[in-house]
């Protein structure tokens, strides 16, 4: 690399890096200070009404971080009841809105963060910097994107079905947001106690196909309809391996409620290997199956057939611009978070800490750390692997994923009835490995991956 130093060039009036990009640390400190001051101010004002209540709740929350959100919520409700003397039904309503508010804001922030982290991680994989001009290390880039998306003109193609064109992004976003309600974020912190959480997740997962169809049909464009059809076929055929992997876990933990599944994964073996399902042979295969099917379900990297073929058959989102496209974009990301959240709940032990002496970190932090690890894995895969072709994609689902799903269920059964000891472990490992190798050969014969030896000319 040639040494970089300024060259006696005509120094035109070049815009120097803005303050935020030049001194990132000080800008960040400024920002955090501002937020703290505003928060303290609001707290102080509210506190005047009923002295000592709110601050007491905050101090209590500080004391026990594990249950901090619950304590804060109880404190706030108590404050509302005493200071503003609200009616009981009003309190019930506000408690629901508190939960909704925190969920939406937390996942909103993660969505904004991920759109930046994705671009920066892909950039770093490709040996370049990634956005670093808007704000410190590019932290304001999501803000800039949001403003751009909102101010862009929202074009509705002529002859398009306006109602469907408008409803499609909504039917994509709403199920993704609803699914977030049943994930167990921490001990006792499950927004909605559902006995059939897993079923709820798959039911709402199925409704996104209707949204894709509406998008394809509403854009009045032959190619976006074709794209919608292909992505519906892909989503349906990849839902089955998703079911099978989740079925194995439900079978083992004996219940459909996510909370029960997470509590089934409590405790440690040999005091440092946690009871997570991913550490069992069938669990590991099931997790890989679930995660690959999750990538296909949310149209991410190796399976991004519809939007990847944009130069040929337009994806179903092509006729959208401005705010509706932003909603699609958000629906895709929230869908990815939801399905990664589920992978964490089913296989990676929900909010349990990986090591016993790490349990002082609050549960909900563990949940989000693991969730974000899976999101980063998805980004990493996106930066490496080329796109699968249409027929390979379908062949892979039906010829490899579904048979492997049955094998995982069988292995889980064997593991369970063999009492989980070493023989059970080995038996289920064999039951998983045999079809993997056999199917690998079947799938490989379709495209021979045998190493080719190249001869050289003699002259």
């Amino acid at each position: 690399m040639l040494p970089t130093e300024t060259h006696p060039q005509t120094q035109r009036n070049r815009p120097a890096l803005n303050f935020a990009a030049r001194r990132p640390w000080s800008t960040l400190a400024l920002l955090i200070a501002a937020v703290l001051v505003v928060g303290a101010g609001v707290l102080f004002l509210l506190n005047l009404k009923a002295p000592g209540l709110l601050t007491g709740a905050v101090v209590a929350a500080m004391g026990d971080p594990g249950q901090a959100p619950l304590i804060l919520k109880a404190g706030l409700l108590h404050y509302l009841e005493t200071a503003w003397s609200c009616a009981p039904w009003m309190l019930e309503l506000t408690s629901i809105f508190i939960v909704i508010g925190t969920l939406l804001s937390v996942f909103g922030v993660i969505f904004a963060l991920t759109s930046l982290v994705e671009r920066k991680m892909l950039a770093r994989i490709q040996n370049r910097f990634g956005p670093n001009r808007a704000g410190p290390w590019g932290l304001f880039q999501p803000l800039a994107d949001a403003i751009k998306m909102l101010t862009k003109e929202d074009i509705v193609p002529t002859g398009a079905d306006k109602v469907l064109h408008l409803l499609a992004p909504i039917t994509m976003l709403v199920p993704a947001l609803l699914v977030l309600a049943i994930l167990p974020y921490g001990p006792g912190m499950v927004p909605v106690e559902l006995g059939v959480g897993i079923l709820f997740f798959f039911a709402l997962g199925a409704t996104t196909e209707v949204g894709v169809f509406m998008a394809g049909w509403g854009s009045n464009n032959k190619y976006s309809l074709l794209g919608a059809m292909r992505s519906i076929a892909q989503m349906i055929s990849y839902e089955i391996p998703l079911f099978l992997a989740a079925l194995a876990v439900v079978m083992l933990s004996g219940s459909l409620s996510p909370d029960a599944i997470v509590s089934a994964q409590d405790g440690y073996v040999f005091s440092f290997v946690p009871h997570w399902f991913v550490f069992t042979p069938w669990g590991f295969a099931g997790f890989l199956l679930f995660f690959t099917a999750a990538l296909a379900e949310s149209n991410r990297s190796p399976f991004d057939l519809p939007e990847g073929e944009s130069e040929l058959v337009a994806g179903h989102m092509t006729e959208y611009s401005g705010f509706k496209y932003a909603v699609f974009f958000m629906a895709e990301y929230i869908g990815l978070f939801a399905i990664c959240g589920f992978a964490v709940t089913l296989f990676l032990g929900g909010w349990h800490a990986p090591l016993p002496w790490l349990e002082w970190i609050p549960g909900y932090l563990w949940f989000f750390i693991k969730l974000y690890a899976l999101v980063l894995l998805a980004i990493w895969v996106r930066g490496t692997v080329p796109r699968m072709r249409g027929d390979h994609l379908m062949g892979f689902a039906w010829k490899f994923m579904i048979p492997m799903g049955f094998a995982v269920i069988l292995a889980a059964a064997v593991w369970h009835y063999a009492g989980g000891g070493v023989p059970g472990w080995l038996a289920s490992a064999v039951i998983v490995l045999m079809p993997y190798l056999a199917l690998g050969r079947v799938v490989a014969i379709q495209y021979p991956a045998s190493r080719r030896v190249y001869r050289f000319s003699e002259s």
Partner: protein
Amino acid sequence: MNSLFEIIAFLLIGSLTLGAAVAAVGLRDTVHCGLSLAVVFVGVAGLYLLLDAEFIGFIQLLVYVGAVAVLVMFVILITRPEDGVIQQPDRRRQKLPGALIAAGIFLVTYGAIMQSPSLRRDVPEPAALSIRAVGEALVSGHLLPLMAIGVLLTTALIGAALFAMEGEDGK
């Protein structure tokens, strides 16, 4: 009785379902009809949930909205005439006979419901139906029908595959 919320919820969902059902029948564009049918399914699922039958509610949501609605959409697309113009039946002459038939059916069903003995008995406390109970009943008591349905479905699947392949190039 049940709380204020549930009454509001019931009214909301009930009207949604009814409205969607009327739309499914009345709208001109078949695709809109198909989609309002999907909304009807969602409404029915909501009603199930209101009755605390969670399992049936989510199965309804999963099977009907996820699969049947999309299937209906595919069927509508395949059978659309190329130029997209759908001959609408002229509705003027059919209004009177339609109303008569509707009234007749309503009366018959109303009479049957009123005579049925179940109305006289007080509403029994709903048994706490858990998924586990449904599962065990399915596998133990009704194993034979379950297996029969399985075989039926596989033959249907294979049949569908054959149809699809045949259409390709006559091989």
